[in-house]
């Protein structure tokens, strides 16, 4: 049974290889190959899941040792897979959602002549992501970690002819690289401390080392997590990442990859538990990002960017939970899974809307679409209810638990964190309602005006086939696209309930992550109540602003905060001024230095030698007689020398 684990990765990897090396002859069937292989991988996942369920809770860990990867004296890195409950959860999420989105893409990318390559990249992503979650040591995890980074780079920049896309891709990869630096330093620290970086031994010996070292390791891991999961201060890439095709945004930048950071923290729970300071930092990062993302989400008119903001903030919730230690690990993962469902659903819905609206992304040019694309409307609506935590839907359960846990941290920070979480819930409700209203309700602002507003030029080749500047005629998307949306909607409706009724999810994960009930100063009921209140407030405000009044199709100037939020709270400007400009100046001056100083010294000596010889050249005046004189003088000197020799 263990041997199946490798096949989880192998299937999509094979797909990637075949599709990317296959050449044009596979264009016709490429997308189906990719999709089938994704489903195959999912099937393996299910089989393994069944196998795990067969075992009793303590022995639900499958190990597979493939081969010794990098053996150098003390440094032993093996290719070993570990499949326990935590990995299993992710495997199912990744392969499940992944397969659905493959299916969706078949329709969405229909008109793209490079569809084959798109599926190749998607498969590559699946393989890397699976490798990430089933790796048994940090170095192998690092491979998957960078692998998903590469895949997301390729997919964000899939429409490379758009400079914006290429830039966004580069930005994403670079910011991630900064995070990866953290990961690699963490691995080095582990090796220097433990002499190994395999999960088992490291976690086993956490007790034997100083807290300082552990804190350092933990912070480095956190840096990595921030990079991958778009947490403050490394969040700036996620918004731009929406340049990629919508399925990519759904799969990579909502459901799976961006949650890798959470996985890393939860997986390294043993280390974090032993480093409380680091945990505090984690929670702070989570809380800040939670609010940050939410605020950004409120200001964006680009539907995908708004959703991106919400993703950021939802992951903030997870990180916050993960930072709470054993109290929160399980809920972090749970929220991660449910979020995977509804956020993927929302993105697919958004994609479907764009598909029907000539790839218009500006919500101010939507409106009243509910009667034109009913399926999309319903699925999107369910996702919406789920994310704002409408009672009974999945978001309600998972988010509520996290807020409880936040309060349960105890002490002042418990209160602060809890407050942040509540506030976040309110804002979430606000901006999601805003999205919902602006898209599906109100009067139809897209009537009698050409879409494709110049400031958001989305050159998705899909668009080039229906006329560019024609007035859009919204239509429902094909079955191949709607079915995945429906499935995900179902998941987002019942997932939460299914998990938390009887604490199924808790019992499932506990053996890996451990769990402890913190003593919450406020009862669960109060928390739930508070959440409901926030929810209502948020929805109410949103309705007042966007449901009652008509939405202007050109964005009003807005308050200072709004304008800042539209610019991602000036994060990018900061980066631009400090990093980019500074870097450019630095490199330019260095180039100058290299040319003048380092090289100049050498050339200077060369020049001086040249000058000297030039002066020497004057002696060669070309007159045979003066040469003769020197010759004669030389002869005289020789005679003198010989005589002296004789004399001595």
């Amino acid at each position: 049974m263990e041997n199946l684990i490798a096949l989880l990765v192998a299937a999509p990897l094979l797909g990637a290889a075949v599709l990317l090396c296959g050449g044009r002859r596979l264009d016709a069937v490429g997308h189906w190959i990719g999709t089938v292989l994704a489903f195959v991988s999912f099937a393996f996942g299910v089989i393994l899941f069944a196998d795990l369920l067969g075992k009793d809770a303590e022995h639900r860990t499958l190990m597979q040792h493939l081969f010794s990867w990098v053996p150098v004296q003390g440094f032993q890195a093996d290719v070993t897979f570990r499949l326990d409950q935590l990995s299993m959860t992710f495997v199912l999420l990744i392969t499940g959602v992944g397969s659905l989105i493959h299916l969706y893409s078949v329709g969405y990318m229909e008109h793209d002549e490079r569809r084959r390559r798109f599926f190749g990249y998607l498969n590559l992503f699946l393989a890397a992501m699976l490798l990430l979650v089933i790796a048994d040591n940090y170095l192998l995890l690092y491979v998957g970690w960078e692998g998903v980074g590469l895949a997301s780079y390729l997919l964000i920049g899939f429409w490379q002819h758009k400079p914006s896309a290429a830039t966004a891709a580069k930005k994403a990869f670079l910011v991630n690289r900064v995070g990866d630096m953290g990961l690699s330093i963490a691995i080095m620290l582990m090796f220097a401390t433990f002499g190994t970086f395999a999960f088992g031994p490291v976690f086993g010996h956490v007790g034997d080392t100083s807290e300082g070292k552990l804190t350092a390791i933990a912070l480095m891991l956190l840096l990595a997590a921030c990079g991958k999961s778009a947490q403050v201060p490394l969040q700036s890439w996620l918004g731009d990442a929406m340049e990629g095709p919508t399925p990519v945004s759904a799969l990579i930048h909502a459901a799976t990859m961006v949650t890798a950071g959470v996985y890393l923290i939860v997986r390294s729970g043993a280390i974090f538990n032993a480093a409380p300071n680091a945990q505090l930092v984690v929670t702070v990062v989570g809380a800040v990002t939670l609010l940050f993302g939410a605020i950004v989400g409120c200001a964006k008119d680009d539907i995908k960017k708004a959703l991106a903001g919400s993703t950021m903030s939802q992951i903030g919730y997870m990180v916050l939970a993960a930072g709470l230690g054993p109290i929160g690990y399980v809920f972090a993962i749970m929220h991660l899974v449910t979020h995977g469902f509804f956020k993927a659903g929302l993105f697919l819905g958004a994609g479907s809307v764009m598909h029907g609206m000539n790839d218009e992304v500006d919500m101010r040019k939507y409106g009243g679409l509910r009667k034109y694309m009913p399926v999309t409307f319903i699925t999107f609506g369910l996702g919406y209810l789920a994310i704002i935590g409408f009672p009974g839907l999945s978001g309600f359960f998972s988010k509520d638990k996290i807020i409880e846990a936040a309060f349960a941290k105890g002490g002042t920070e418990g209160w602060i964190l809890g407050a942040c979480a509540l506030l976040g819930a309110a804002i979430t409700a606000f901006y999601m309602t805003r999205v919902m209203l602006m898209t599906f309700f109100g009067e139809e602002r897209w009537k009698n005006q050409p879409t494709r507003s110049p400031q958001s030029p989305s050159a998705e080749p899909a668009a080039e086939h229906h006329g560019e500047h024609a007035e859009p005629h919204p239509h429902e998307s094909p079955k191949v696209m709607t079915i995945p949306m429906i499935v995900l909607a179902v998941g987002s409706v019942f997932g939460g309930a299914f998990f938390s009724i009887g604490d199924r999810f808790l019992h499932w994960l506990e053996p890996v992550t451990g769990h402890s009930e913190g003593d919450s100063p406020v009862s669960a009921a109060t928390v739930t109540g508070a959440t409901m209140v926030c929810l209502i407030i948020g929805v109410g405000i949103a309705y007042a602003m966007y449901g009652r009044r008509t939405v202007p199709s050109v964005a009003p100037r807005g308050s200072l905060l709004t304008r800042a939020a539209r610019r991602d709270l000036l994060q990018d400007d900061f980066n631009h001024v400090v990093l980019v400009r500074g870097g450019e100046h630095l490199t330019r001056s260095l180039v100058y230095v290299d040319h003048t100083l380092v090289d100049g010294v050498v050339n200077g000596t060369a020049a001086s030698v040249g000058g000297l010889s030039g002066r020497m050249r004057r002696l060669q005046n070309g007159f045979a007689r003066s040469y003769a004189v020197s010759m004669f003088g030389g002869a005289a000197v020789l005679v003198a020398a010989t005589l002296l020799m004789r004399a001595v």
Partner: protein
Amino acid sequence: MSFPLLTATAVLPAIGAIATAAVPAARRTAAKWLALLVSLATLALAITILVRFDPDGSRYQLTESHSWIAYFGVRYELGVDGIAVALIALTALLMPFIILAGWHDADPLETGSRRWRPTQGFFALILAVEAMVIISFEATDVFLFYIFFEAMLIPMYFLIGGFGDRAHEHGEEAASTQRSYAAVKFLLYNLIGGLIMLAAVIGLYVVAGNFSLQEIAQARANGSLHMATSTERWLFLGFFFAFAVKAPLWPLHTWLPNAMQESTAPVAVLITAVVDKVGTFAMLRFCLQLFPEASKWATPVILVLALISIVYGALLAVGQRDIKRLVAYASISHFGFIILGIFAMTSQGQSGATLYMVNHGISTAALMLVAGFLISRRGSRLIGDYGGVQKVAPVLAGTFLIGGLATLSLPGLAPFVSEFLVLVGTFTRYPAVGIIATFGIVLAALYTLVLYQRTMTGPVKKEVSAMPDLRVRELVVVAPLIVLLVFLGVYPKPVTDIVNPAVKSTLSDVHKKDPKPPVEAAK
């Protein structure tokens, strides 16, 4: 006396060079094929060495020893340890690709220019370089090594100065002047280094009385040959300077960008992937074995210089406008990593460094050769002249991207393993140095991706709109390299197994042990 395998491996390309040069001018193609066949035969011999070499056997194997200049005690002594075997294999492996990639680089120019490119000469010189490089990897006699270490410069000089890119933005005249400047610069730098080394070699002879690496090393080890501290340090500096110029180490690096920029892509690969390796290899074999104490004494300075090389090279690479210069500065950064690994004096560091030499050879070859194909299509080396190539020539762009990813050492590709080993090896002994060096990987991503974005993505420039995709010959060159990159990235064990014992004995020469982790968690 068994079959002198090592001699054969070095002599075969030498004979090949002469034969190629002797091919009549009209039969150009014949010369090319001859050169290719010779390089393949050499590869076969190198593989035989690889097979015959027993990692767990004695340190130096397949040794040959004949008296040469008895008066000076100079002997013709050959022998290979794991490190040398790996590098010989690399050299022999790259040669066929270099020759194949340079297939048309030396054809006589039909249009305009009066400069006649002697094709035979081009390939003969390449083979000559191969012969000399291989023998300097094999030589265990300091004098013998020195001779070929220096002789290498002559064919390289003609390769750099004689053959440049077909087209040049400032026209043929400017091109030739810049070429000769680069060639002379290359020659001067390395000659000066070599002269200083010669002084050190003579000094060594005065102190030790013979040139045999093994004898001297043994004598040093068992204390029968005692050197005054100052003497040892001076000799070490003499040797190290030459190797640092060749490597090249900051601030002795400025010859490399010019040389790589002006020479054709295959020659550039020859410089950075093959010839420069002799420098780093020699640090490992001669500096550490002959002068262990001095090496330890000099370590701090060298580490700092290596760090500067890493960051500085990367930053300059970001600032370049010329594709080849960019690659050159990237190589400088990578050589910084190699030297860092060597002088970290840990088994991870040195195994990593050796592995790095091999991987860097392959990855740079892949990137540079593809860049060469690109340049030969557009006739310009300036990054700004490209754009949107990805849409026109996807395969070319893809291979270029893979080469770039290898250069930024993406996990799963070969360079990652070596780079990480070097970093870990450095970190365990000098944490601060390790962390600073880690910034190199971010910068690497920066310059690689900027290069890719500016050349390959974005709207299609009209100059490149008619650009043909990779031809079969070019694909034959690139594909194997990429396969190799992936394979060594996933399964580097074969190489490490060969290298590890050699590294272990080198470390024992300098009396260094890996630092023990405080917590013994490794089973």
